[in-house]
C-alpha cells in the first residue's frame, strides 16, 4: 500500500488540515451559534424568523465541520483523540446536548404555533449558548494542558474547570455573538439590521476586552509561550499580529458607523483568523499542549497517506459545493416561513 512519508511530513500536513478544519467549523458554526445566542434579544418575532431563515439552509453543513474535526482528529491523531476526549467528558457531553436542542429547534420552530414557538426559541438560544460556552471551556482547558498517563488521560474529571477556562468560555460566547450579529447585518434589512448593528457595536467592545485578557493571560500559563512572544527578535516578528488585530477592530467600528453591510462580517472573521494564528503560535508544536507533539500522536503513515488522497480529491469538491449553496441562498433573508 502507498505511503507518502518519504516525501512529505505527513503529521505536519495533517496538523495543518485539522487546524483549518476546526477553524472553518469555528467560523461557520460560529455565526449560526451566534445568531442563536442573540436570538431572544431581537426586537420582534418576525426579526427572529428572519434571523433563523438566514441560517436554516446552512446549519447542517456547518455542523458537519464539527464531525470532520472530531472524525479527522480520530483518524489522523488517534492518540490525541483518545486522551483529549475523556479529559473533557463533561463539557463535551453538555456541548452535544446543547447542539441537539438547537439543531432540532430549526425544524420544530417553523412547524409550531403559539407558546410552543417560544419553547423552541429558548431551546435554540440556550442550546447555542451552552454549545458556545462549552467549546470555549474546552479550548481554555486545552490551552492549559491535560495530565497524560502513558497512552491515556491521567487527570481528574474536573481538571477542565478553572478561572481561565471559564473566562475563555465566556469569551467565545461574545466572539460567536459578534459573528452572529455581523452575519445578521449582512443578511437582513431595516429593523433587524439596525438592531444587529447596535448589538455588533456593543459586543465587539467585549470581544476586544476578552482578546486583550486572553493575550495577557496565555503567556503566563507557560514559560515557553512567554518567551516565544516576548523574546527578541520574536517580539518584532510577531508584533504585526497584535497591530493587525487593533487595526481590524478600528476598521470594524468605522464600517459599523458607515453602515456597511458586508465589511463588518469579513472584519469579524479577520479577528478570528488573527486570534487563531496567535493561539497556533503559542501552542506549536503540541497537539496535547506541553506533552504530546503532532509527530508523537500521528496515526500510521499509511493511514495518513490514504486520507491525504481522499482530502485532495474530495475537499475541493466540498468547498466548491458549499460555496455554491451559499451562492444559491445569497441576498437578504425574508420573514416568510420557508419550511
Amino acid at each position: 500500500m502507498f505511503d507518502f512519508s518519504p516525501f512529505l511530513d505527513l503529521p505536519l500536513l495533517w496538523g495543518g488540515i485539522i487546524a483549518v478544519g476546526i477553524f472553518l467549523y469555528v467560523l461557520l458554526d460560529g455565526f449560526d451559534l451566534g445568531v442563536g445566542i442573540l436570538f431572544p434579544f431581537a426586537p420582534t418575532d418576525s426579526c427572529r424568523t428572519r434571523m433563523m431563515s438566514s441560517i436554516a439552509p446552512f446549519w447542517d453543513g456547518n455542523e458537519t465541520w464539527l464531525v470532520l474535526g472530531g472524525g479527522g482528529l480520530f483518524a489522523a491523531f488517534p492518540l490525541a483523540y483518545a486522551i483529549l476526549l475523556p479529559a473533557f467528558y463533561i463539557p463535551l457531553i453538555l456541548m452535544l446536548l446543547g447542539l441537539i436542542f438547537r439543531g432540532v429547534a430549526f425544524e420544530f420552530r417553523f412547524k409550531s404555533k403559539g407558546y410552543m414557538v417560544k419553547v423552541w426559541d429558548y431551546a435554540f438560544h440556550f442550546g447555542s449558548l451552552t454549545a458556545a460556552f462549552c467549546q470555549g471551556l474546552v479550548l481554555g482547558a486545552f490551552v492549559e494542558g491535560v495530565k497524560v498517563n502513558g497512552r491515556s488521560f491521567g487527570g481528574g474529571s474536573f481538571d477542565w474547570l478553572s478561572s481561565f477556562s471559564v473566562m475563555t468560555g465566556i469569551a467565545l460566547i461574545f466572539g460567536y455573538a459578534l459573528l452572529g450579529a455581523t452575519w445578521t447585518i449582512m443578511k437582513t434589512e431595516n429593523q433587524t439590521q439596525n438592531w444587529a448593528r447596535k448589538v455588533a457595536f456593543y459586543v465587539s467592545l467585549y470581544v476586544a476586552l476578552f482578546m486583550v485578557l486572553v493575550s495577557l493571560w496565555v503567556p503566563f500559563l507557560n514559560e515557553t509561550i512567554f518567551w516565544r512572544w516576548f523574546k527578541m527578535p520574536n517580539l518584532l516578528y510577531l508584533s504585526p499580529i497584535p497591530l493587525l488585530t487593533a487595526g481590524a477592530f478600528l476598521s470594524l467600528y468605522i464600517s459599523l458607523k458607515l453602515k456597511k453591510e458586508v465589511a463588518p462580517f469579513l472584519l469579524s472573521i479577520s479577528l478570528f483568523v488573527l486570534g487563531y494564528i496567535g493561539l497556533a503560535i503559542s501552542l506549536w508544536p503540541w497537539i496535547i499542549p506541553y506533552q504530546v507533539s503532532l509527530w508523537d500522536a500521528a496515526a500510521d503513515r499509511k493511514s495518513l497517506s490514504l486520507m491525504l488522497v481522499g482530502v485532495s480529491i474530495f475537499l475541493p469538491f466540498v468547498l466548491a459545493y458549499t460555496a455554491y449553496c451559499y451562492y444559491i441562498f445569497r441576498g437578504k433573508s425574508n420573514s416568510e416561513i420557508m419550511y
Partner: protein
Amino acid sequence: MDFDPILFSRIQFAFTVSFHIIFPSLTIGLASWLAVVEGLWLKTGNQAYKDIYTLWVKIFAITFGMGVVSGVVMSYQFGTNWSAFSDRTGNVIGPLLAFEVLTAFFLEASFLGIMIFGWERVTAKMHFLSTITVAFGTVVSTFWIMAANSWMQTPSGYEISPEGIFHPLNWIDIIFNPSFPFRLLHMITGAYLATAFFVGGIGAFYLLKKRHLNQARIMFGMAMLMAIFVAPFQIFLGDLHGLNTFHHQPAKVAAIEGLWETEKGASLILFGWPDDTTEETKYALKIPKLTSLILTHNLNGEVKGLKEWQPDARPPVMLPFWSFRVMVGLGCLMALTGLMALWLYLRGRLFTPRWFQIWCVGMTPSGFIAVLSGWFVAEVGRQPYIVYGLMKTLEAVSPVLGQHVFISLLAFILVYSFIFGAGIYYIIKLIQKGPGPSRKEEIYGSHGLPTPPSVIAIERESHV
C-alpha cells in the same frame, strides 16, 4: 451502588446508537424514494407526485435533522467513552469514518438545503439533481459506516504492533472485509423496506380515512411494489448473511439458535427459553435437522454449540436469540404482506379491502423494529469482543468515572425522549395535514386579522 463505567458506557452507546439508527434507516429510504417521486413528477407532470414530494420532504427534513444531531453524538462517543478502542484501532477505523464525512456527510447536508428551501432559487432540473445527490450521499454514507462496523466484526488486512495498536496492511482487505458485502446489502435493503412499510402504512391510513385518495394510491401502490419484490429478496440476503456469520462468528450463530451442545444434524429451535445458568434451552419447540440443513446444506452437518467456548468468551444468549426471532418474524410478515398485495392486485382490488388497509397501518413501524432487532443480534452476538476475536469490549473503555457516565446516560435518555416525542408529534401533525396544496392560514399583515379572500385569490393567481 457501584457505578461501573463499562456497564454504563455500554448502555449509553447501545441507547444512543439504537436511537440514531432509526433516523438514517428512514432517510436512506426516503431520499431514494423522493428522487423517484420527483423524477416521476418531472416526467409525467402529475401534480399528485409534487404533493407527495412536498409532504415527505418535510418529514425527511425532521428525520434528517434528528439523524444529524444524534449522529454528531456518535462521532464523539468513540473518544469520550471508548478512548482505548480509539487509540488502538484509530489507524484502521479512523480513515473509514473520515471518508464518510468527506464523501457523504457534506454532500447530504449541503444539497439538503436546496432540497428543502431551493424550489424558487434553482431550476427544476437542478432541484431534481439535488435530491439525487442527497440520495446518493445516504448510500455512500452507509457504505463507509458498514465497512467500519464489518471490519470490527470480521477484521482483515491489519497487523498488530507489540503495544497492541492495529496498523493497516491492505485497505482493500480492510474495506471489503469478509462480512462487508452481506452486511451492506442487508442494511440498505432493510432501510428501503422499513421506509416502504412506513410510507405504505400512511398511504393505507389515508385510504382508510378516504382522504387524499390520489396521492394515497400512489404511496400505497409504490410501497406494495417494494413489499412484493424486495421483501422476499431481503429474506434471501438475510440467509446469505447468516451463512457468512456461521462461517466467521459461529458463537453468534450458536446464540441465535439457542444451541448449547455441538451437534450433527442439529434441530431448529423455533421457540424456547435459553438459560445461562443451566446451559440449556428450556421448553424448546424443535424441528429436527433443520438448523444443520440451513447452515451446512446437509441434514447431518455439524453445528457448534455454545459449550465449545469458555463461558467468558460466549455472547449473551437471550437477547440475540429473541431479537433474531423478532427480526425473522417481521421479515416473514412483510413478505406475506407482499403476497397478499399481489393476490389483491391480480384480482384488481389492491386499494379496496379495509382489512388489508388496517393490516398495513399496523405494519407501519415493522421495518424499524426489524432493523433494530437485526442490529441487536449483530452487536450483542459478537460480545465479548469489540474487535472480533482480537480486542474485548472490557479493554476498550475510557478512564472516566462511572458516576459521570451514569449521569450523562440519564441526560441522554431525558433529552432524547423529549426530542423524539416532539419529532413524532410534528411528523404526525404533518401526516394529519396530508399532501396537497396547503391553505393560507397565516394572519394578514401584522394586524392579527384573517387574510381576506380577495387577497388569497390574488396571491393564488400570482403564483400560477
